[in-house]
């Protein structure tokens, strides 16, 4: 088996598993992003719709994994990208068709009851410093360690690896190159915290907000681990190629499971619920409500937030996020 395929297939299987369970990762009364009777998913029709979607999504997964074996290794990027795009597009279309079916045939309309907390000090999602500070401390300690062993660093070392695990970019020893992984890691951690802060300020007081803020805080750990490992590689640290993606997968799977348990808890109720009308959800996943000043709204399916695409601020946040991603890539390229 090609090395790229050996690394990539487990990740494809993981994404396929997420698609299989995605319709269940939602709140009571929502099924395939459509508002339904809370008992509907357990009914014969509900089970039939879910079964049909799973067959279709499974088929797309088989096609994608099959393509991962077929694609040439001369272009590992294409071998990685094409199957994942096919799987996401195929399963996404299946999901959209099921949303249309459920909404049209079994959908319900709930009263548009809105609720506000009458307190001058609105409830904010709590940030826990003992969760988010240690990753920054760990990176600072790593930076100090690298500085202390500066003379042991080779004059030239790899800074980028291909999907096959082989280095394909090298750099010489200088402070920016040596500390770049830690700087990028700290930047990404900071970005996650800023995102969590934005959710806290610009969204309603829902259960999802609490879950998302905590999730973003905990995600700093696998990210920090990744960047610390990469920063220590020039010192001769040897790690199995599967370690970083493996830890990332385990963390993400654990966090998804934890989020599902939180969302499914029977006593859980939103203090200030998001608007519930299906008409605001285009294709079941894109929220568009020009009257709603909220920039972020809790996703109907899955964990986290989506944007109110009718808000210009949402587009600004999207543009800034893209700028940060493109900027980071551009920043890394000079090290070639």
């Amino acid at each position, binding site marked *: 088996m090609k090395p790229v395929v050996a690394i990539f297939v487990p990740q494809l299987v993981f994404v396929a598993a997420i698609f299989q369970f995605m319709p269940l990762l939602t709140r009571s009364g929502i099924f395939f992003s459509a508002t339904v009777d809370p008992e509907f998913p357990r009914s014969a029709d509900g089970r039939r719709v879910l079964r049909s979607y799973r067959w279709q999504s499974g088929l797309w997964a088989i096609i994608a994994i099959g393509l991962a074996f077929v694609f040439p290794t001369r272009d590992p990027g294409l071998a990685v990208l094409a199957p994942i795009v096919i799987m996401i597009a195929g399963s996404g279309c299946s999901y959209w068709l099921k949303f249309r079916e459920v909404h049209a045939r079994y959908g319900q309309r709930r009263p548009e*009851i*809105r609720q*506000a*907390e*009458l307190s001058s000090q609105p409830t904010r999602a709590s940030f826990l410093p003992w969760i988010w500070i240690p990753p920054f401390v760990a990176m600072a300690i790593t930076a100090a360690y690298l500085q202390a062993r500066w003379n042991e660093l080779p004059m030239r070392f790899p800074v980028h690896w291909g999907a096959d695990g082989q280095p394909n970019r090298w750099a010489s020893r200088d402070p920016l190159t040596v500390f770049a992984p830690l700087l990028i890691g700290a930047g990404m951690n900071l970005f996650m915290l800023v995102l969590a802060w934005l959710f806290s300020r610009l969204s*309603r007081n829902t259960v999802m907000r609490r879950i998302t803020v905590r999730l973003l805080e905990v995600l700093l750990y696998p990210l920090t681990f990744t960047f610390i490992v990469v920063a220590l590689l020039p010192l001769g640290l040897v790690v199995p190629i599967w370690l970083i993606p493996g830890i990332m997968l385990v963390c993400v799977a654990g966090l998804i499971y934890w989020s599902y348990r939180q969302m499914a808890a029977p006593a859980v109720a939103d203090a200030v619920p998001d608007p519930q009308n299906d008409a605001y959800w285009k294709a079941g996943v894109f929220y568009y409500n020009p009257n709603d000043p909220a920039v972020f709204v809790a996703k109907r399916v899955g964990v986290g937030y989506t944007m109110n695409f009718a808000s210009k601020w949402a587009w600004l946040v999207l543009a800034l996020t893209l700028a940060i991603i493109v900027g980071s890539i551009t920043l890394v390229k000079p090290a070639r």
Partner: protein
Amino acid sequence: MTSCLPLYTVYVQYTVAGDLTLRIDLDSAVPAYRQIVDGLRILLVGGKLEPGAELPSVRRMALDLGVHFNTVAEAYRLLAEEGWLDLRHGRSARVVYRDAPDPTSDTLREFGYRLRALTAEMLAKGAFAEDLRSAMRTAAEELES
């Protein structure tokens, strides 16, 4: 007795839920700003919001209710005109002490019209006059206490 309960229950449920929560129903024929005014006035008259209390900012309440900023701003402005709120620039809306004005003949006449319309609507729905009297008394006592 049971036939009068929905009138009161629905009114309270769709306007105010709990001491510090405001609810509105966007499906209602009553405009959102009017529902906000009505809901807040119940809390103000009932003393749940006392002088000195700060209300959420216009931005925050609009965000929570999922309505336009102007809707909340209009509601706050109307309550300020009634003398309930102080809306100084750069500060949160603050509840102020307000002397209840003597009711004018116009005010009483308007109340009479609205009450007759509501009573007729409830009688048309099958409520009994005695039930409505009882519900009216209960509402007045709750707000006065």
